[in-house]
């Protein structure tokens, strides 16, 4: 579903990703783990198309299409969803307006009919309930004054409504207490399906107790240096990244 070959990326003339290879088939959840500064967030931003993240080499195939050719919003409409480590506050735009604008923009680009206001309201109400999000919160400007947990729940709400084909979760566990982590993880797990892929970027094994990955990749200095099964997370938790960092050096 997502196939990355030799991806090399510079930000402000500094090379961060140095020939990264990764393949995530549909139906699988892969985790990317690695120390600070390894390029984990850069990978997420590059796939989403953030300006200033310059791809100098390599290719990304997403469902048979060249992902890197597409504009940011076209990638979203094609089914890619990046959940931000720090979701931005959008003052002046009610959460509901934001989500509906995004949803209908995607539908329009795909040549689908826009969702009517009543239909949208019904859908969002059902999803909000499962995520324990109060409808009043959705009338407030998106993420403004929301707690860390509320912001992440809002991210999961958007995933559930936008129904992307592929999810990239960038440090979704940061800023979450144990209860919020469970609500958010349950929300993500509910989206697991045979035709959807996921890439979970995390520092800690903790998140992977809740969102169980099929594969784990260790990212050090811009490359995947080791891949393995779910057991790899426990090993990392016990021994740290040192071994891989030294090998890469």
């Amino acid at each position: 579903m997502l196939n990355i070959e030799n991806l090399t990326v510079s930000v402000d003339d500094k090379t961060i990703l140095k020939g990264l290879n990764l393949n995530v088939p549909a139906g699988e959840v892969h985790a990317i783990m690695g120390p600070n500064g390894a390029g984990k967030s850069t990978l997420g931003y590059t796939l989403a198309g953030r300006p200033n993240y310059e791809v100098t080499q390599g290719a990304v195939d997403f469902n048979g299409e060249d992902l890197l050719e597409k504009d940011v919003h076209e990638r979203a409409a094609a089914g890619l969803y990046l959940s931000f480590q720090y979701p931005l506050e959008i003052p002046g735009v009610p959460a509901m307006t934001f989500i509906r604008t995004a949803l209908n923009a995607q539908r329009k680009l795909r040549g689908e009919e826009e969702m009517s206001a009543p239909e949208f309201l019904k859908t969002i109400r059902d999803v909000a309930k499962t995520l324990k999000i109060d409808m009043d919160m959705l009338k407030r400007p998106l993420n403004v004054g929301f707690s860390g947990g509320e912001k992440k729940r809002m991210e999961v709400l958007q995933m559930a409504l936008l129904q992307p084909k592929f999810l990239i979760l960038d440090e979704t566990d940061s800023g979450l207490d144990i209860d919020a982590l469970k609500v958010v993880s349950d929300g993500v797990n509910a989206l697991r399906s045979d035709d959807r892929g996921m890439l979970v970027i995390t520092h800690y094994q903790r998140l992977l107790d809740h969102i169980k990955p099929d594969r784990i990749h260790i990212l050090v200095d811009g490359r995947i240096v080791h891949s393995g099964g779910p057991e790899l997370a426990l090993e990392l938790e016990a021994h740290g990244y040192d071994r891989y960092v030294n090998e890469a050096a």
Partner: protein
Amino acid sequence: MAFDLTPLDLFDPSSYPTRRHEEWTYSDLSRALRDVPARAELTHLQAEAGDFGGFYWHCAGDGQLADLQAAVSKAVQGSGGRLYLDMSDFGEEGSVAGYQGEGRITLGAGEHLILLEDYSGALDYAASTVLHFDVAEGATLIRVVILDEPESAVSVRRSTVTTAPDSVFKQYVFATGAKFQRFETHVTHAGQGALVEMHGAYLLKDAAHFDYTTRVTHVEVDGATQQLIKGLVKDRATAVFQGRIYVEKGADGTDARMRHQALMLNDGAHVRAKPELEIYADDVQCAHGNTIGALDESALFFCQSRGMPEEVARALLMQAFVVPVAEQIEDEGLREMVLNWIEDKAGGFYAL
């Protein structure tokens, strides 16, 4: 503290202020009005109940402002305290018509008025209008002004406001600028415990010029002034904000706050901001803040990454920047009307 309220006569170029006047440094009227406009005849006058759910005063020619109080009285007594002042029907095809007028609105003790002033002409004109507001004890005046003038227009809209004890004056100005557009409000805070709010939002593009000048003098004790002015400036447009709050000796208990925030959407756009506080009383709380920045690129990327094309995301964020001004309007119908207007204008910035 005397304000520079030198009368301006559109038909007498020697009365035009020049940039040497400190108050007019950033807004050059003489340059905008190189040719003296032709004096326009009044066309027609109409008064009826309008869509706004209140009294409708169609003023085609500013000279008729002299009769404004009659409409105000009728609105306060019989139309739910709402008056729609339609100043949109100006101009003549093929020539620059000049309109000039002065009016007075007096609210009696405890009276309430919501005034909607709509300046959205279509043809070439130059206009100079002066409105005086006297707000008596315990009275409330809510003033919403839509300055949606044609890009060729030259206009100077001046108002004076005098408060009385426990009165409330709230002003919300929404502007798109013009060849020259200046909106001045001079407030004398003469009533103990009076509240004055003077907010505004501007959305300027192309070569539009908008100047929001506010002057507040706190004379009496316990007066409050609140100001939030937010704006967007694109292309070669220029925004000017001159806000001065003057607290006289003895005006203790004054609480005055002024904020101006502008977004410059490209190089070449201009924002000139001059917030001033001058305080001669001891026991006061005063603050002013002024920020000028660019659209938050991270927020833009966030919106795009959720599927919004760049122009949709930009329009949404720009709209979001100025809507907090409109959201303060308590009257729901009026608030919705202004929010729709902003949506329309912000969308127009990127040709949605």
